[in-house]
Every structure is written in structure tokens, then in C-alpha cells.
């Protein structure tokens, strides 16, 4: 398993796809963060720096980008045909899946920390420019970082599994994004009782970002999200083991 993990890290490091996604995520979340601090009162920011509400702009962007990162782990290989040498080198295909889940989760954790760092940096810089010294609440920031990293890792795992199941790159990315950005909010209208258990809402609950009473508790949200990721990974494992390699 170690050799598959090393191989997957090399795949990530030897193309610019991941870096391009990271840059895109930072640009988007940096912009949104800047808009947030511009529109908030400095006092509000200073007291709430460690609260997810202030950092919502980055917290929201992370899962979307790591989802795409995860989806592309398999679909890039299928698209370019490199899945053939990959499976020839490692015919135990679930090991490839496991290595991808691990490597993409670690990379996604890096994405999450980079986004949070940028969000905090922008806030602190803005406050400093207003002449306000900010006591950084290291403990609560670390707790927030832990939650965002946790959600990012599971969200990326969902992406990896979706990529393995759908196989077609555009279909997988469009489908996954449509689910996150559109489908869950539509389901919320139709079945408000059930929507809290869907992955997007469970992730929102797990970060503890919203005080929406219809959401699950943060702990329950984390459990439900983990269940979705595990279920999707299980389906992906069964599918890649059974299906012929195109």
C-alpha cells in the first residue's frame, strides 16, 4: 500500500492540475473574504475572528474545490488512458482506490489550511490597517481548522468515489457540483425533514457554521458525512473491482 501512496503523490506533484485548483480556490475565497471584511464592522471582525461566520467565504469554497480535486483523481486517468498502466502495475484495484483516497485527503487538508490561512491573514491585515490589534484566539481557530480539514478530507473522498463510479470527467464534475450547489437546496423545499441528512447539509452542520435549527448537531453532521463518504467509497471499491477497464 505504501508504494501506491508514493505513486499517487507523484501523480499529484508532476502535473499542475492540483496547483491550478489551489490557485483558483485561493483567488475565489480571497476575493470573497475581502468582500466580507469590507462589509463588516471592524469591532465585529475583531471579536469574531475565530468564528466560522467571519470565515464563511473560505469555509464554503474549500469543499467545492476539493470535491473537484477528488473527482479528477480517477477521471483524469480514465480520460488520458493512464488508468491502464496504473492497474497493470497494481491489479489489486482497491489498493489504488485506497491510495487515492489517502493522498487526495491529505492534499485537501492542505487546501483547507491554505484557505483558512488566507482568510485569517486578510482579516488580520484589514484590522491592522484600521489600527485594531487583534488577539488571535488560537484555541478556537485550531478547533475551526480541525473541523474544516475534517470536512474537506471527507468531501474529497466523496469526489474520488464519484469519479470512480461515473468515470466520465465532465459528467462527474458537473453532476457533483450540481448536487452541491443546486440539488440539495431544491430537495430542501420538497423534503425539509430529510435534507439535513444529505452530504452538503451534513457538512455545513459538521463545520458548526450555521445556527440553522433544521441542521443536525455538529457531531451528528460529522457522523452522517463520514457515513456518506464511507458508503460512496464502498460502492466505488465494488465498481472498480468488478468492471472491465475501458
Amino acid at each position, binding site marked *: 500500500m505504501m*508504494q*501506491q501512496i508514493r505513486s499517487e503523490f*507523484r501523480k499529484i506533484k*508532476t502535473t499542475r492540475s492540483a496547483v491550478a485548483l489551489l490557485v483558483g480556490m485561493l483567488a475565489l475565497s480571497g476575493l470573497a473574504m475581502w468582500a466580507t471584511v469590507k462589509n463588516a464592522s471592524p469591532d465585529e471582525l475583531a471579536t469574531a475572528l475565530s468564528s466560522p461566520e467571519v470565515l464563511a467565504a473560505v469555509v464554503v469554497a474549500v469543499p467545492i474545490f476539493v470535491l473537484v480535486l477528488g473527482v479528477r483523481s480517477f477521471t483524469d486517468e480514465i480520460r488520458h488512458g*493512464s488508468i491502464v*498502466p496504473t*492497474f*497493470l502495475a497494481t*491489479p*489489486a484495484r482497491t489498493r489504488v482506490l485506497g491510495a487515492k483516497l489517502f493522498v487526495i485527503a491529505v492534499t485537501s487538508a492542505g487546501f483547507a489550511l491554505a484557505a483558512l490561512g488566507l482568510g485569517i491573514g486578510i482579516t488580520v491585515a484589514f484590522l491592522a490597517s484600521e489600527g485594531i490589534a487583534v488577539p488571535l484566539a488560537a484555541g478556537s481557530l485550531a478547533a475551526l481548522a480541525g473541523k474544516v480539514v475534517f470536512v474537506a478530507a471527507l468531501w474529497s473522498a466523496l469526489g474520488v468515489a464519484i469519479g470512480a463510479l461515473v468515470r466520465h470527467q465532465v459528467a462527474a464534475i458537473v453532476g457533483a457540483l450540481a448536487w452541491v450547489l443546486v440539488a440539495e437546496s431544491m430537495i430542501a423545499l420538497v423534503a425539509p425533514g430529510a435534507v439535513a441528512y444529505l452530504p452538503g447539509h451534513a457538512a455545513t452542520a459538521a463545520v458548526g457554521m450555521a445556527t440553522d435549527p433544521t441542521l443536525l448537531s455538529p457531531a451528528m453532521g460529522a457522523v452522517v458525512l463520514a457515513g456518506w463518504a464511507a458508503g460512496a467509497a464502498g460502492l466505488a471499491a465494488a465498481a472498480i473491482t468488478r468492471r472491465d477497464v475501458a
Partner: protein
Amino acid sequence: MTTATRTTRDERPAIGTPAIVARNLTKRFGPVEAVRDLSFEVVPGRVTGFVGPNGAGKSTTLRMLLGLAEPDEGTATVLGLPYRSLERPATTVGAVLEVQSFHPLRSGRNQLRVLAAASEIDDRRVDGVLEIVGLTDVARRKAGGYSLGMRQRLGLAGALLGDPSVLILDEPANGLDPHGIRWLRQTMRDFAEDGKAVLVSSHLLSEMAQMADDVIVIDRGCLVRQGTIAELTNDGAESLEDVFLELTDEEGVR
């Protein structure tokens, strides 16, 4: 079948013991039987050609040998084991299936480093095989810019990474210029003379006549003939092309 009981994987196949055994392979895609009850053996020390018209089931058969496609019936083994049971297959079997199986934005060298890591092969071997296939000068360029011939060479470099005792090549001459074809022929010849096994598919019969010692001819998924080139061509009295057309063109419609 004595080969089925072999458990050692890394050793060279003994002369006379088949390196590849296909037994009653059948593969269906919906109502179409792409491969039907196909059995053959490939022995070490010889280059075995695998020929048939386009769509005869050559690639499907090779994919079943390599564990990429699951046969509906029958078995395929390499050195006595199904491919997917091999612990480090790169050290047993080297294969080149598709020409375009590289990420276009990754350098040739990095493609091989990715594979080397997965098979626990020393990175120094990467530069070694790049040298063998003559790609050292372009190794750090993105594979997307490689010519068809360079991609074939890169594929072959990947196949040779683990110093395998069996080579399986699907249409490796595609895209090679005359120098490349001569080089490929010599590479396969050296490989076979080392006591290793080579199975190579092609629809270029004149090439095949010069490359191979033995030939397996299939048509519409079925075995038509298996024998040495000399047997099939009556010691050269007929060309392989004529024999092939006789064997495979009964209905005249392709």
C-alpha cells in the same frame, strides 16, 4: 495442466513450460461474442505473433490476459497465475496496450517514475530504460508533445521497467519509422533470446513474418491456426499474407 500449480513468480519460465496459457477464453459484449472459446499457449525463448483482422478480438484477448477485462468463460494465466494474482506484476509481465495512455502534461520521465513507485522499482532504473528505448534526450519534456513513435517507445520503456520475463505488446509497430521498427524487432529478438516470452499483436503481416517465430491467427474471436511461421508458410513457399487471407477471408466482407 502442470503450470497451474506453479507458485514462484519471479523466476524465468523453464524452457518448454508455457509462459502464457489461455484456456477456452470467451468474452461477450452484449449479444456480440468478441472472443469465443479461444485457447493457446505462448512459450518462452520465442517471439509469438498474434494476428487477425481488425475486430477479430486481439486486443480483447490481450486485455483478458492482463486482468483488465474479465472473461465470461475460461481462464488466462501468466507463469501459472492469473494476472490479478501477481504480487508485483511489473517484475513478471511488461505490457504496452494503448498508444495514448499518458497524461499529456506529465513528462515522459515522470510517467515512468509514477509507475516505478507503484511497483517498488528503483528510480535509477527509470533512466536506464529511457536509455534503452532512446528517449533520454526528450525524457523531461511533456509526453503530450511526443510523436506516435516516441509514445510507443515510452510505453515500451514502462513495460521494461520491472525487467519482466514476459512481454505483451499490442500493435507496437504502429507509428514507428523504419529505424524504429528495426529497433523494435531487435529488442524483441534479444528479449526472446534471453529465454523470455514475447506475445506481439499486429495486423502488419510482412512485419510479423520478420518479427515472429510462432504465429497465432484468430478471426471473429476464434482460433484459426497456431504454429511456427515456417509451418504456416510451408517453409516460405507462401507469404504469411497469402496464408492469412486464405484463413480469414472466407466471406470476403470486412
